[in-house]
């Protein structure tokens, strides 16, 4: 990849890449013995499209390259997803994935920007990533630069008031260099979102906050790619993509049970999961 030219896979290649990412999310969390694989699995197509579908401009050889686009993983517990993507994008060796959550490893339980190249924000206290993204967007505006900022939000995270403070601010300042992507997987730590705190209608809320909103199937690679490209090109308003996803996507027994939140699969479950994904 030459500097400034994003990696651009075909749809077929992206789908295969998603299968690789799912495998690595499951294996690294099972080795770690803890972590949030189900929260990571729901965002795989979104992250694959961003990093490997030609949406984001970045250079793993120069993590702080001024012209790079930004990805902020506001739902920091999906760190396994972020780490496997950054590893496959070339920020560090995939061998490092085995060290997830171990003492001394820069792959901490939640992302730590001080220790790992490619991590744009330290997250893990929910609600904070969008505001940080706005800071990046304001900096780009002040510099007349064209960096785009993508922020991945959880749907449980929509409970946090700070999200809506940031939503109002981005709209007021017409920050069209910001795209928020809600990984709407319908589940949070103790139950389904509709049972814990039913904030529906979500899409209408973002519309009411004056964002340009697209609602898509977050596992349809073509739809994800198209929505991201459109969001990046949108002018005059910030963009929100409400991506309908499935928590634990690709592993049937995880999809069916929200109680898998924050649990690594056992060795035996890992084998079943990898079989379902066509790896064995």
């Amino acid at each position, binding site marked *: 990849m030459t500097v400034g030219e994003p990696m651009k896979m075909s749809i077929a290649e992206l789908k295969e890449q998603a299968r690789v990412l799912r495998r690595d999310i499951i294996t690294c969390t099972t080795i770690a013995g803890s972590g949030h694989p189900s929260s990571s699995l729901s965002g795989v197509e979104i992250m694959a499209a961003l990093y490997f579908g030609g949406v984001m401009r970045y250079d793993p050889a120069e993590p702080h390259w001024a012209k790079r686009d930004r990805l902020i993983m506001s739902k920091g517990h999906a760190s396994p997803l972020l780490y496997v993507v950054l590893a496959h994008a070339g920020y560090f060796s995939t061998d490092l994935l085995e060290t997830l959550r171990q003492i001394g490893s820069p792959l901490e339980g939640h992302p*730590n*920007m*001080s220790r790992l190249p490619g991590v*744009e*924000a*330290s*997250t*893990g*206290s929910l*609600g*904070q990533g*969008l*505001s*940080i*993204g*706005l*800071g*990046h*967007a*304001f*900096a*780009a505006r*002040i510099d007349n630069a064209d960096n785009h900022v993508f922020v991945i939000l959880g749907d449980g995270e929509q409970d946090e*008031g*700070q999200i809506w*403070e*940031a939503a*109002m*601010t981005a709209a*007021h*300042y017409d920050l069209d260099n910001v795209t928020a992507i809600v990984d709407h997987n319908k589940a949070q730590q103790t139950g389904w979102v509709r049972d814990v705190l039913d904030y529906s209608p979500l899409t209408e809320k973002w519309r009411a906050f004056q964002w340009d909103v697209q609602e898509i199937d977050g596992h349809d690679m073509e739809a994800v790619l198209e929505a991201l490209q459109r969001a990046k090109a949108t002018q005059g308003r910030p963009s929100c993509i409400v991506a309908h996803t499935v928590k634990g996507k690709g592993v049937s027994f995880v999809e069916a049970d929200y109680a898998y939140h924050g649990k690594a699969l056992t060795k035996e479950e890992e084998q079943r999961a990898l079989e379902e994904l066509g790896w064995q």
Partner: protein
Amino acid sequence: MAVKPDIEFTMGKATRDAFGAALREAGKTNADIVVVDGDVNNSTRTEWFAQEFPERFINVGIAESNLVGIGAGLAACGKLPVIASFACFIMCNGYDQLRMSVAFPNLNVKVVGSHAGISIGEDGPSQMAIEDVALALGLPTFTVIVPADEPSTHKAVAAMLESVGPAYMRVGRPDVPVVYGDDPDFTLGKANELRSGNDITLIANGIMVSAALEAAHTLAADGVEARVLDMHTVRPLDVEAVTRAARETGKIVVAEEHLVQCGLGSVVAMAAAEHAPCAMAFVGVENTYAESGDPAALLEKYGLTARHIAAKAQSLL
């Protein structure tokens, strides 16, 4: 250093005014400075910067959590964000963001809290930060600065902007006496000795510095020569100055316009306990919130005057 020789203070501007003026001045030479305020820019005086550099000023509305996060993002991009609101609102409402988005990643965000302490007066306890220094001390990596008067605040703002890493500066609403001459020495982490003496040491910051000097003047009438230290930087603390004061004077009174249990007094006591234990006494807001009222009357009622400092000193002699 030109220190005023006697106790006839002249009144200077409020430390928030000095902050606003120094920030506007710094904006002229440092294009990286971006100021973010939570819709109190006419109170914090960041509006003076905003008027001159509107393209580098963001009013985020009354949303301190978001305010802090935006500051973090700006810093991550190499900007020098100065984020401001009332001390109680930015420190209390924005605290998780200060912890997670600023302190933990050690980002170069300068946080300024105005209207600190009970001397804001009539607006009452909901607006009075009496815990902001404690909260700032709870953020590893933060430098914590409490300047005393107009001239030293100018220097403190410049020093803070030159330093690298997160910092919190507390400034106040009312006009305060000038204890320094023009162009005072100011080094972060280095106490300024405003009066020499070997019988006891009075350590203070913020508006309590002038009160400490006044108390020393009173004590001198009784033949007690008090050393007075302006401990404008609470962290990193000038441990050497504390140790020297403990060894040379044997007694220390600490005075602050803040909860007495968890501010300057605590860190000074810790330093003295470790390096040169000595008799100590503390002046500050006791375990309570204050109330609305005239600032001078409040300071008197809640025990934050020269008279209270002198009485504590006498109790140690």
